[in-house]
C-alpha cells in the first residue's frame, strides 16, 4: 500500500496578518463542516476535508499503464495569518475486482484510490516523485493549486501582499515499511527552485501523522526558501544600506516569527524531523539567516547613530 501527496505553499494575498477569526471564515467554504483551529503555539486554521473523485492513469517510472479510481482528500490551511497551504493526498490499494465499480463503493472509502490491474507500488512512487512531465496522469498538485487559487480569490483578502514570492511544492510518497516496528525515515530532495520531493518509508499506522508532518515540512521549507530569496534580493541589489534594509522589512514583518518546526506533530514522526535537522539542517540555516538580517539592521542603526546630527 502506498500513500501519495502534494502540498503547495504560498503567501496569503493580504496586506497584513489575518486574524484567526477571519482566517476561520476564509476557510469555511464547505457548508455544515467546521474549520479546525488552534492558537498555541502559533495561529493555525485548517479547512474541512474536501473530496475529489478521480479515474485516471497513475504516473509510473517505467511507463507501464495503471488505472486508479477513487477519491483524494484535500484541505487548505493558514499559519500565522500569512502562509497559505493546499494539501492533497490519497492512499492506493489494489481493487478486489478488475473493473470499475459503482461510485458509491468509492465514496464509502474516502481518501482511497483503488488500482485496477497489476501495479508495482515502487514504480508508481518513483513515477510520481520523478521530475519527468507525465501528461494525463494523476496530478495531485493541480488539486492543491486550485484549492489555493480558490482561497486567494476570496473577497475577504485585499490582494495587496507585502511582497511577491513564488509558491513551492512538496511532493511526497510513503512506502510501507517491511515491519511495523521500523521507525519512519525519509529522503528529502530539492528538485528545482520550486519543487521538493520526500520519499518516506514508514509503517501504515503512521500515515495520518505523516500527512501533517509533510505539511509542516512544506511550510518550513517555504519559509526558508522565501527568506533566502528576500535576503539575496535585498543584499545583492543596488542602493544604499538604508534602502537595502528597507527591502528586508517584509521578512521582519511577516516571516521571522513563524518558524516553529514540529509544533503540532505527533511524537511518532519526530525522528524524521530530527534527521532533517541533522542534515540538511533547516533550523541551522534559518538561524544563520535570521542572525544575518539582525546584524544588517544593527549595522544600519549604528550608522544612523554615528551620522553627524543635523
Amino acid at each position: 500500500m502506498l500513500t501519495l501527496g502534494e502540498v503547495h505553499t504560498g503567501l496569503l494575498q493580504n496586506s497584513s496578518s489575518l486574524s484567526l477569526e477571519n482566517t476561520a471564515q476564509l476557510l469555511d467554504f464547505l457548508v455544515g463542516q467546521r474549520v479546525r483551529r488552534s492558537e498555541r503555539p502559533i495561529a493555525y486554521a485548517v479547512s474541512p476535508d474536501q473530496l475529489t473523485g478521480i479515474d485516471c492513469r497513475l504516473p509510473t517510472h517505467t511507463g507501464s499503464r495503471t488505472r486508479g479510481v477513487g477519491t483524494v482528500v484535500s484541505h487548505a490551511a493558514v499559519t500565522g495569518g500569512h502562509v497559505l497551504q493546499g494539501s492533497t493526498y490519497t492512499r492506493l490499494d489494489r481493487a478486489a475486482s478488475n473493473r470499475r465499480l459503482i461510485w458509491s463503493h468509492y465514496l464509502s472509502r474516502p481518501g482511497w484510490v483503488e488500482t485496477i490491474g497489476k501495479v508495482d507500488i515502487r514504480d508508481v512512487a518513483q513515477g510520481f516523485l520523478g521530475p519527468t512531465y507525465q501528461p494525463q496522469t494523476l496530478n495531485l498538485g493541480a488539486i492543491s493549486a486550485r484549492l489555493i487559487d480558490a482561497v486567494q480569490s476570496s473577497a475577504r483578502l485585499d490582494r495587496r501582499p507585502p511582497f511577491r514570492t513564488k509558491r513551492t511544492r512538496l511532493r511526497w510518497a510513503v512506502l510501507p515499511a517491511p515491519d511495523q516496528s521500523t521507525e519512519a525515515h525519509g529522503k528529502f530532495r530539492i528538485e528545482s527552485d520550486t519543487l521538493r520531493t520526500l520519499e518516506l518509508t514508514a509503517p501504515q499506522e503512521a500515515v495520518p501523522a505523516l500527512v501533517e508532518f509533510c505539511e509542516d515540512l512544506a511550510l518550513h521549507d517555504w519559509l526558508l526558501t522565501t527568506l533566502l530569496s528576500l535576503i539575496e534580493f535585498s543584499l545583492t541589489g543596488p542602493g544604499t544600506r538604508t534602502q537595502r534594509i528597507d527591502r528586508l522589512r517584509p521578512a521582519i514583518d511577516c516571516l521571522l516569527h513563524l518558524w516553529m518546526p514540529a509544533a503540532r506533530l505527533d511524537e511518532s514522526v519526530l525522528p524524521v524531523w530530527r534527521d532533517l535537522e541533522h542534515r540538511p539542517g533547516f533550523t541551522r540555516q534559518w538561524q544563520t539567516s535570521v542572525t544575518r538580517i539582525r546584524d544588517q539592521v544593527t549595522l544600519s542603526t549604528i550608522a544612523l547613530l554615528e551620522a553627524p546630527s543635523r
Partner: protein
Amino acid sequence: MLIFAASDKGGTGRSVTSSNMLYRSALQGSDVCYLDFDFGSPTAGAIFNIDSAVRGTTRGGLHDYLDGALAEPQRIEVWTESDRASLRNRPPGAGRLVLLPGDSGGGEFPATRERIERCARLFLRLEEEFDLSLVDLSAGRSYATQMVLAATAMPELKSVRSRWLVFHRWTRQHVLAASGLVYGTRGILDAGSRAGHDYDELVNRLRFVRTAVVDPDSPELEGLRPAQVAWLRECNQDLLELASNNRVGRTMLIGSVPLDPVLQWREQLISDNDVYARKIANLETVEAFSALAKLIVDDAAWEML
C-alpha cells in the same frame, strides 16, 4: 501588475518592443513574466532565443492550458534556459525573467466562459509572484483581446492593476489603425465596456507607444538631401496633427522607440553588449526601452490631465 500589449496591424514591433521593455524592467530589479497570447503565431521564443520554443512550445503552453488540457502552462526561465550567451546568467540585482510560451500549431479560439475563468486564474497566480506580467496579444480585434478584457472584468481581478499599451508605427495607416483599434466599434474600449469595464477608467489605463520612429532632427539624417529632410519634416507635422485629431496624440502617448537597424533585421532582445561592445545597436533605442520600463509602473505618467 498586468500589462496588455496590443496593436492593430502586424509588424508594428509590438512583440519586440514589449519584450525589450520587459527585459529592461527585469534588469532594473523587477520580477517579470511574458505571456505569449499571440496564439496564431507564437514568436516570443525566438525573441528570447529559446531554441525549443522558437515557433511555440510542444510541451504544453498557454494555448493548451486555456483549452483545459493541462493544469499549468510551461514556464521558461530565460536567465537559465536561453540559448544566447549574453542572456544567460542573471546579472546581479536583476529580477526574474520568465517566458510562458504559446503552443506550436495553436490558433485562435473563441473566448468561452471556461477559458475566461482559466485565464483569470492564471493572471491571479502570476500576480502572486511577479511584479509585472506582460500579455502579448495577437494583432487586431482578436479573441485573445476579448478573453483578457472579460477576465480582467471579473470581480476576483478587481483589485489587480492592469494597463494597456497599444503599439503603432509612425505612419498614416498605422496611426489611423491604432485609433480604430482603440476607439472604433468592437475596439478595445467598446469591447471592454461590453465586458463590464468602465469606459472612462479603461481610457485612463491605456496609452500608445510609437515604434520605429524616424526623428527628422536626428543627426543620422545628415546624409539626406535638404529636400528629403524638408519632406520628412512636413510628413512628421502632418502625422502629429493626424494623431491628435484621432486621439492618438501627445496626451495619450507614453513613449516612442526610434528606428533601429538591429530590430529591422532581426526580432531580438538588445543587450548592453550589443550597444557598448559590439556597437551594433543604438544607445537611444536601449534608453527608450529603459524609459518605457520605468514609465509603465510610474503612476504619475498615467495621470490624466
